């Protein structure tokens, strides 16, 4: 596969991606491209393979065939931590933060320095770290809770903390799996505001069911159905696609 062939240098190029679990093709010959600074939302009915696509990109699941190129680098060959180091960040559906650590410590662990065993032994909590942690904590509305243990946070706050943990890594591609699921109305509004702020200068891949939220943020929408792309384009185009209405939006 020649990278030079592509008309535009895509940030992320997924081509012919297939994964099969015991013969069941959760993702089937999927191809899509994400540009720099693009916000792409993936929607689709349950079991369409949305989360699996994110799992494949971040290395949690190994692809059966196909390629995922990020800035021309093949991700399918890399380990999870190496994928993170190339600049891909992933937020999980259920908030996964370190509950036995404080908000500060959670953010500090995600700070991209001292990631090797001996690097982490020599890691110093210097002014640069503190400043960055405080800056991100302010962004995620947790500035006055830095010393709080994460298990004391509300569901929404945990989601924000995890988003903050990604922000501090400063990834070029941010992948969010249902960032507003389970949030209260006010938390939802705040999260939308937060996401709108953090998506500047980076590409974002979001899975979301909340159509209002999708309309607010999406540049382009990809509709997945049974592991394949059903429709792709602007929200307007996708909304009026009869196939999409039939399998997804019509409900």
């Amino acid at each position: 596969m020649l990278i030079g062939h592509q008309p535009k240098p895509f940030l992320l190029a997924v081509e012919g991606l297939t994964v099969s679990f015991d013969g069941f093709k959760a993702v089937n010959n999927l191809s899509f491209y994400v540009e720099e600074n693009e916000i792409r939302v993936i929607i689709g009915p349950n079991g369409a393979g949305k989360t699996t696509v994110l799992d494949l990109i971040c290395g949690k699941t190994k692809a059966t065939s196909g390629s995922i190129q990020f800035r021309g680098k093949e991700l399918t060959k890399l380990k999870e931590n190496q994928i993170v180091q190339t600049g891909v960040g992933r937020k999980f559906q259920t908030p996964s933060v370190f509950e036995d650590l404080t908000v500060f410590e959670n953010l500090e662990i995600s700070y991209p320095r001292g990631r090797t065993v001996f690097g982490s032994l020599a890691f110093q909590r210097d002014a640069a770290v503190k400043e960055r942690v405080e800056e991100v904590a302010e962004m995620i509305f947790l500035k006055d809770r830095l010393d709080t243990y994460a298990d004391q946070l509300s569901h929404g706050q945990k989601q924000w903390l995890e988003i903050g943990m990604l922000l501090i890594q400063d990834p070029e591609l941010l992948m969010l799996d249902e960032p507003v699921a389970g949030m209260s109305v006010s938390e939802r509004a705040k999260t939308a505001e937060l996401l709108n702020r953090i998506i500047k200068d980076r590409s974002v891949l979001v899975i979301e069911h909340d159509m209002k939220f999708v309309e607010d943020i999406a540049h382009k929408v990809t509709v997945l159905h049974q592991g394949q792309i059903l429709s792709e384009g602007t929200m307007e185009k996708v909304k009026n696609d009869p196939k999409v209405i039939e399998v997804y939006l019509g409900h």
Partner: protein
Amino acid sequence: MINSRFFNRSELIGFIALAAILFVILPLSLDVFRLNLVAKYLTYAFVAIGLVLCWGYGGILSLGQGVFFGLGGYCMAMFLKLEASSVENTKIQSTPGIPDFMDWNQITALPLFWQPFHSLTFTIAAIILVPSLFALIIGTAMFKRRVGGTYFAIITQAVAAILTILIVGQQGYTGGINGMTDLRTLKGWDIRPDHAKVILYFVEVVLLFACIGIAQFIRLTKLGRILVAMREQEDRVRFSGYSVANFKIFAFCMAAVFAAIGGAMFALNVGFMSPSFVGIVPSIEMVIYTAVGGRMSIFGAVWGSLLVNFAKTGLSESFPQLWLFGLGALFIAVVLAFPNGLSGIWADYVQPRIDRLLASRKSKPKDGWNSVADGAPAE
């Protein structure tokens, strides 16, 4: 909490209390026989401290720490045995100059792998390096393949069983089931008389505090926090850009080194080493010491080792058959009722009372001001 000091207040109290007891109170109040017994118990404290890092912090339950205790112990015992087997001491053997058990097993020359143990420098290096290398191999093989949890625990058990069988089976090279006995001198210095036992006790306690220091240092670095993070949310650590396997290997190797130092001190203090300290049962007992002391507490590990062993000596003398059942019951009771062990009981029940006592005494002269300051951070 921003940790800027090496010990916080309650840890400092724990440190001073332990240092006072081990350095002053026990040596002054116990006879040499009992002090030597304490030295023996404390060799397990090294293992327990390692388990605090590996199991308590990192969440890696190893039921095979006896392997590393044994490797350290055997390295030390090999050196001591060679020194005890000088040509002069062994002239009645058919091959003088080799350990007695080799002679009994018709071995006529010192095996190649025994040769370097003539050197004390090599031996000390081996005590550290052999177990860490072995842990590195097991750790790499397991953790890189993402074998963890109970599977890992079972495999460590198997390793402990295999090593025991190997030692027992190769008795010409290892002394077999009897182990290496009749260890006499260290560089010509007799380790058997009372004053030597006292000196060895103090050497051991100094080493123990060195290990406590190292463990505390690791705990306070970012690596310590990554271990905690890994125990809870392995995937999140991975997706924060860390190689989880490498951190697990490190914790496992540290635990192995601590265990090996304990094993080496065991050989010195007790004067022999045998496969009965390597296998499955001793390995599980070591986990019990850690659990009883509190698997998150470095000092707790030392207390757990001392108290369970005192209880073991006391009870196994009077009820030899019941002891193992008692130990098992103790483990189950601790895990079910007090998952944080003695240190958890201390932190939950004793410490708050002491704090309240101190606070009430302090707040009287300066009333109001202190209580506001105390109440503020509570959230």
